[in-house]
């Protein structure tokens, strides 16, 4: 997909011819919402909705996407949408799934599949909503959960969460003479979701729209719980120019800081080809105000960690390649056939 390069004018020729085959032209998350300029999360939500299509019900956690989209009496949502509170979108989504299932079975609603989808930011997903998420994934609902990970509590003013990267300066983990900023490494939530034995887990980023949408489509088809963590660049919280959102997402992937992969029935697979040698993390970090205070030795520490985590991930990908599908299906089949 290098169309802009082939067409230096910046216009994509025959866009209307090709785009509908790739992307639903219908807008389910409409314009007019109140997200910041350059908000990566709003773009990601829009793409997710296009991939999901009409037959979807969304349960949203409190957070940026909820406050910018549902200011009464307006709404940006053309899909059925419910918001209850901060920590419980996975639980509300579980209930939506159960409700749709039983009403369809009893013939009280139309007899066609409608996908239940829950969403939240990284705070609402990985911190306060983690228990509800774990429960929803463990119970085996036919539910897709999408975490829009902008690496902090951006709605309340850029506080640290367990998804905030090491060394980032936030309003509750500020950099100072005695502090590097956030002192913890980003929680590896996709890995914890893999440990729930759900059929599908993936990472994604709005800067790779087709990759993200393909993952959403795949997750939608899964009969059972699925989890996608979508890195969503926040120009306000990351202290970058608003036009740099897409670029920043690409750099997060190209440096190996946020690799794009999927885990289907336990099998790891990279979904984006990466260059032989990853770009240095500095390329990504030097452009962001939240990392501005870091010294070269501190960046080196982060580089080492990224190298290590990337290698661990690649080990899993390579290990998955060595499995025989037959053995894998037999072992999965044993548990799924009970009851």
């Amino acid at each position: 997909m290098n169309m802009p390069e082939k067409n230096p004018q910046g216009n994509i020729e025959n866009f209307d011819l090709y785009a509908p085959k790739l992307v639903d032209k219908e807008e389910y998350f409409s314009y007019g919402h109140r997200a910041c300029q350059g908000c990566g999360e709003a773009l990601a939500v829009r793409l997710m909705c296009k991939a999901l299509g009409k037959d979807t019900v969304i349960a949203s956690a409190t957070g940026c996407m909820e406050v910018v989209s549902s200011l009464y009496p307006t709404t940006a949502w053309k899909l059925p949408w419910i918001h209850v509170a901060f920590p419980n979108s996975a639980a509300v989504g579980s209930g939506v799934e159960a409700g749709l299932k039983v009403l369809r079975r009893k013939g009280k609603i139309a007899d066609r599949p409608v996908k239940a989808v829950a969403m939240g930011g990284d705070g609402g997903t990985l911190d306060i909503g983690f228990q509800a998420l774990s429960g929803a994934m463990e119970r085996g609902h036919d539910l897709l959960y999408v975490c829009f990970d902008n690496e902090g509590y951006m709605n309340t003013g850029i506080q640290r969460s367990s998804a905030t990267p090491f060394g980032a300066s936030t309003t509750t983990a500020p950099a100072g003479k005695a502090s590097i900023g956030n002192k913890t490494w980003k929680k590896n939530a996709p890995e914890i979701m893999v440990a729930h034995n759900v059929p599908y887990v993936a990472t994604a980023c709005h800067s790779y729209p087709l990759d993200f949408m393909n993952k959403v489509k795949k997750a939608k088809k899964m009969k059972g719980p699925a989890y996608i963590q979508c890195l969503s660049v926040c120009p306000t919280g990351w202290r970058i120019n608003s036009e740099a959102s897409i670029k920043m997402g690409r750099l997060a992937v190209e440096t190996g800081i946020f690799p794009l992969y999927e885990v289907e029935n336990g099998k790891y697979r990279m979904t984006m080809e990466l260059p032989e040698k990853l770009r240095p993390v500095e390329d990504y970090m030097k452009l962001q105000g939240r990392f501005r205070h870091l010294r070269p030795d501190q960046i080196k520490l982060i580089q080492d960690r990224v190298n290590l985590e990337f290698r661990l991930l690649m080990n899993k990908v390579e290990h998955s390649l060595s499995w025989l599908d037959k053995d894998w299906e037999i072992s999965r089949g044993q548990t799924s056939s009970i009851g």
Partner: protein
Amino acid sequence: MAKRIGMEVAMAVAEAVALCRLDMAAVYPITPNTHVAEHLSDIVAEGRIDAEFLTVESEHSAMSAVMGASATGARTFTATSSQGLMYMAEVLPIASAMRLPIVMSVANRAISGPLNIWNDHSDIMYQRDAGWISIFGENGQEMIDLAIQAFKIAEHKDVLLPVNFNMDGFQLTHMVEPFEMPEQSEVDKFLPEYVPYATLHPDRPVTMGALGMPEIFNEAMQGKDAAMVNSKKVILEVWKEWERMFGRKYEPVASYRTEDAEVLLLTMGSMGETAEVAVDELRKKGKAVGLLKLKLWRPFPFEELKQAVKGAKVLAVLDRAVSFGGPGGPVGSEVRSALYGEADRPAVLDYLIGLGGRDMSVEDFIAIAEKASLADKKKTKELYEFYGVRGK
């Protein structure tokens, strides 16, 4: 005709809920409510009803999940107690604001600490202002009846509010009592199918749970209050219909031997029956003592209470929760406030009794009635009294 059977009350409540052709329940275990959930899961497991039964990882998620299902148009139920109700607290007022007709049984239990699993009313009092219709039952028969009535009240198009019905933990939940269980055909006749106002479905997309700015918040709160106040009319209608169909009468404030009574006791929940025996004993001795049993806690029955206390000199409220450093118990302060504008009102005494499962015998009620009868309207200074505190 309904059969007369004997069963543990908590299990009977599950049977009653099943008769309501439930679509979905989400539960989390907590003593002393657990038997409701266990028995309901049995009913579903045996295929006696077709319902989704979610065993969630917390009460917060139990309430959240029934909200999600209710928003799709399903008839939903959950049950909890004490700390579980506290854990739900965040979402309870949202359920009522979203006008989701969820039904919940609360097996009333003291809230910690110290940790205590036995009965009082401190759990539901903590949720007094969550915007839920709140009804108390006195015995097993009432709990069964209330469970079925609750769905009809909650789902009525002029109400659309969640309902909790309260049964005293252990003292009611774990008792094996005889009662009449309505037939399925009778319940089907009484309780129509739920017709939701709006649902989460792509055929007619709606946004539920929008953000409310200050410009509309007063109006939203006033609307919720009006819904609550107006629900009383429907509750009374439902109770009339129930009486016609099943012959059992329900009133917001039930009276027992109140004719010419100078002293009135006022109870909520299962202690009413013990207090009745005390009133009988006192009447035998020629004492003009009667009993009021408050069934409808929210919406509060102001008019009915005013009528019920007419002519009495003393009203002794028996409260089973404490407002620390406040006016005593929540029922006592509510009753005082309700009667404040009345020219000829009784002296209201507030006794804090039966906390955390402390037993109350017939003798205790007699002692309280006799003590209360000595109270002088003008000289009563104490707002409240802890009854039966040892070493005092």
